[in-house]
């Protein structure tokens, strides 16, 4: 609502913006990106990107190699400059990288406690490590951990900061299939306990559908498709899972044979981006 106020001594009208309190104000999103563009030299990696992530929402970001998904994650992590563009992410955020990136010269608990201050750092690290099932290995060197254990330590290191935004950069890509299934369960249970907003960057469609509330497909620097997944977890057996999977794969350029019976569930929201939908 705008209100025009006349100030007689100046003779000029001044427009004052009055914000009406909305009765059902939407929750302030944890992540809000508007018209974000990122270039490396001549190459435009992200183009006019809009992304919202609600507090506590689990979003998976799918995309082919070079689609800009890691660039978006790095931007939200504060690792890349935003050049004054409209990007809002909570200060309290933590990243789990594809390679665990533990400092080899620090024992596990010191890696988890990296950057924490205060005398209770060890106790906090121990609590986080216990939560990921590594409480008994807090005093060992990182080089003695298996790939899955290293990744769990990396998750503990992110978790110990109680982040409002948890950024997962293909964290399960380098672990074996069985470990990956266990890690999925671990991440879901931690997400339920701590309720951070999560952005999971992955190229594994099944992983995205298994874990996320919402799946975004990034293509050519834009969101090419969005899929809300309202299935109860665990989801793997559901026919809807297969239908969503087929749709998402099509957006990633993988065409599967048509199913025997078309499934009516789920609705695809596609953005008109031209070549992205081909």
């Amino acid at each position, binding site marked *: 609502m705008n209100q025009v106020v006349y100030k007689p001594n100046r003779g000029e009208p001044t427009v004052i913006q009055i914000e009406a309190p909305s009765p059902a104000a939407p929750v302030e999103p944890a992540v809000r990106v508007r018209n974000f563009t990122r270039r490396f030299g001549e190459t435009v990696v992200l183009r006019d990107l809009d992304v919202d992530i609600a507090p506590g929402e689990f979003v998976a970001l799918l995309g082919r190699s070079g689609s800009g998904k890691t660039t978006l994650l790095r931007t939200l992590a*504060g*690792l890349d400059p935003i050049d004054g563009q409209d990007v809002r992410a909570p200060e309290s955020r*933590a990243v789990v990288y594809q390679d665990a990136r533990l*400092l080899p*010269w620090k024992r596990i608990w010191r890696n988890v406690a*990296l*950057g924490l201050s205060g005398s209770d750092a060890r106790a906090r690290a121990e609590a986080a490590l216990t939560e990921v099932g590594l409480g008994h290995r807090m005093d060992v060197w990182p080089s003695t951990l298996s790939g899955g254990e290293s990744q769990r330590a990396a998750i503990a290191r992110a978790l110990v900061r109680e982040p409002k935004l948890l950024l997962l950069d293909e964290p399960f890509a380098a672990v074996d299939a069985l470990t990956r299934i266990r890690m999925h369960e671990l991440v879901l249970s931690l997400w339920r306990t701590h309720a951070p907003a999560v952005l999971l960057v992955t190229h594994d469609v099944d992983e995205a559908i298994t874990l996320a509330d919402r799946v975004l497909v990034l293509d050519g620097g834009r969101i090419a498709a969005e899929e809300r997944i309202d299935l109860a977890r665990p989801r793997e057996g559901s026919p809807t899972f297969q239908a969503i999977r087929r749709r998402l794969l099509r957006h990633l350029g993988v065409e599967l044979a048509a199913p025997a019976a078309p499934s009516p569930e789920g609705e695809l929201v596609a953005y008109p981006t031209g070549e992205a939908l081909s």
Partner: protein
Amino acid sequence: MSPLLLIALWELGSRAGVIPAHILAAPSSVVKTAWDMIVSGELPSNMLVSLGRALAGLAIGVTLGSALAVTAGLTRAGENAVDPPIQMLRTLPSLALSPLFIVWFGIGETPKIALIALGTMFPIYLNLYNGIRGVDPKLIEAARSFGLKGWDLIAEVILPGALPSFLLGLRFALAGSWLILVVAEQINASAGLGYLINNARDFSRTDVIVVCLLVYALLGLAADAVVRAIERRALAWRPSFIKS
């Protein structure tokens, strides 16, 4: 041929007169001379002088080399200011500078210590600089994303990451300091192992020369053992040390 057999043959050769004492003293006379020199205090006092020179030079060289490497390794401006001149100077063998150092510093302790300092500075600089530049940028980025910056980042990530390279440099520096010590001590010394050797040469006392050579060797071995012990402690996180 085992070393013991070699020594036995050497002893036999000396006793039979095949190896005259002015060419090479018999092992038994070397042992006796060593004992006499220890008892008289001549050997320990001169050894301390040599050791003091090596340690003083090494301390200066390691400090200078580390300071320069950290400066060049951490900042672009530091790299531009420090690296080119050092890369130019390092091609010069330190010992070749000894005539110049004698002109500048005279013939006392200063040129000896300065030569050792210069000779040990380069291996420290080169290895530590490479080590700092070689720290995995992914680890630095991860540490940054967990809130480390400034001195904390340097102390917790960059310097520990460069430590293996530094210790390698320290090993080279120790070996170098020994080599330079031997040569520098031949220049007009009035004390030290080199002085003993020079005196012994004038009197053809090969037994004293051999004793001093043995001491050089033992000190070198001890220095290496010290670095190994430091490595075992400081690099305990390395897989090779974890297994053993």
